[in-house]
């Protein structure tokens, strides 16, 4: 069972823990998150990255940072799960890629990049994964209008006479 004290001992006291039902969440500052994750991978046996996602906390009551990035880890031997969370801000949200630790991060990081514009330093192939290549905005950011900025209508029209 991962204990918070040993993490705090190693990485400082900014690391905090909270829980909701049976979810353990450990909040780590963004400059340390890679080292914490590496430690979890190397020494605590978290060998699977189940899910990795982000949230935009714009207009969220009490939020102090713009983005949160969550890593859901699983130790497949003991069945232990833990959620590592970190916060990022504009103008250049950037994190080190965890692709070297878990290859499942490949598409997950591409998706976060596509939807939130968070860059992952060291990712082997950071391209858009859902939206078309030529799309310029990051649609899951809360300041992007739900209905888009007209991109969905930016296509040539084929009429019956010319086709």
């Amino acid at each position: 069972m991962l204990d918070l004290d040993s993490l705090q001992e190693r990485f400082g006291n900014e690391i905090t823990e909270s829980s909701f039902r049976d979810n353990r969440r450990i909040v780590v500052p963004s400059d340390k998150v890679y080292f914490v994750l590496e430690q979890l991978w190397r020494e605590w046996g978290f060998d699977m990255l189940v899910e990795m996602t982000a949230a935009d906390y714009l207009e969220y009551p009490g939020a102090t940072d713009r983005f949160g990035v969550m890593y859901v880890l699983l130790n497949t031997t003991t069945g232990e799960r833990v959620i590592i969370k970190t916060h990022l801000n504009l103008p250049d949200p950037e994190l080190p890629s965890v692709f070297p630790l878990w290859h499942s991060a490949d598409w997950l990081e591409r998706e976060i990049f596509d939807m939130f514009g968070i860059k992952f330093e060291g990712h082997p192939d950071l391209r858009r994964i859902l939206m078309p290549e030529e799309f310029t905005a990051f649609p899951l950011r809360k300041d992007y209008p739900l209905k888009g900025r007209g991109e969905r209508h930016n296509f040539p029209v084929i009429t019956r006479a010319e086709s």
Partner: protein
Amino acid sequence: MAVGLPENLFLTKLDAAASWARSNSLWPMPFATACCGIELMATAASRHDMARFGAEVMRFSPRQCDLLIVAGRVVMKMLPVLQRIWLQMPEPKWCISMGACACTGGVFDTYAVVQGVDRFIPVDMYVPGCPPRPEQLLAALIEMQEKIMRTGTLTGREFAGRTKSNGPPPFDLDEVRRSQEAVGVPGLDIYTPPEIQLGNAGKLN
């Protein structure tokens, strides 16, 4: 003037003969991108049996088809594919837009979903419903056959006049209004609201 015709012969116009042949052997191209596609399959399956109307030969190559059935929502990434498939179909060809999503975008009024394929490709027949029942699709097919019989010509002259898209222009008033609804909440320190630039598109003329 009396013309002596032997039995088993009748006279017709070439246009009518061509339309009769075409309308009774429509080969659909099933462009099924979402849930409407399931209903399209049901229409072709034994219970509703589209073969009764001569349209059972679903071909997955646009080169062999003459009726495009757009069944489901089309997103930004799919639209160029749809247009390409339409262009690949040989003349004469027709298009049925099936379901609320293909006709108008349906409930998916979001940044990625095209709000009606008729904005970008020509559509002959709209089938409302979410999803339309197989009977509705069959009704549209029969209607389509009637339309071909009524307007069809051997050389496809009837298409020449259709030089505008069927759908609304990309930035009609409604669309502008919808994008203006989406202004964010000002006065938050971690946030600056984006400038929405409409350019000339928002102009009333």
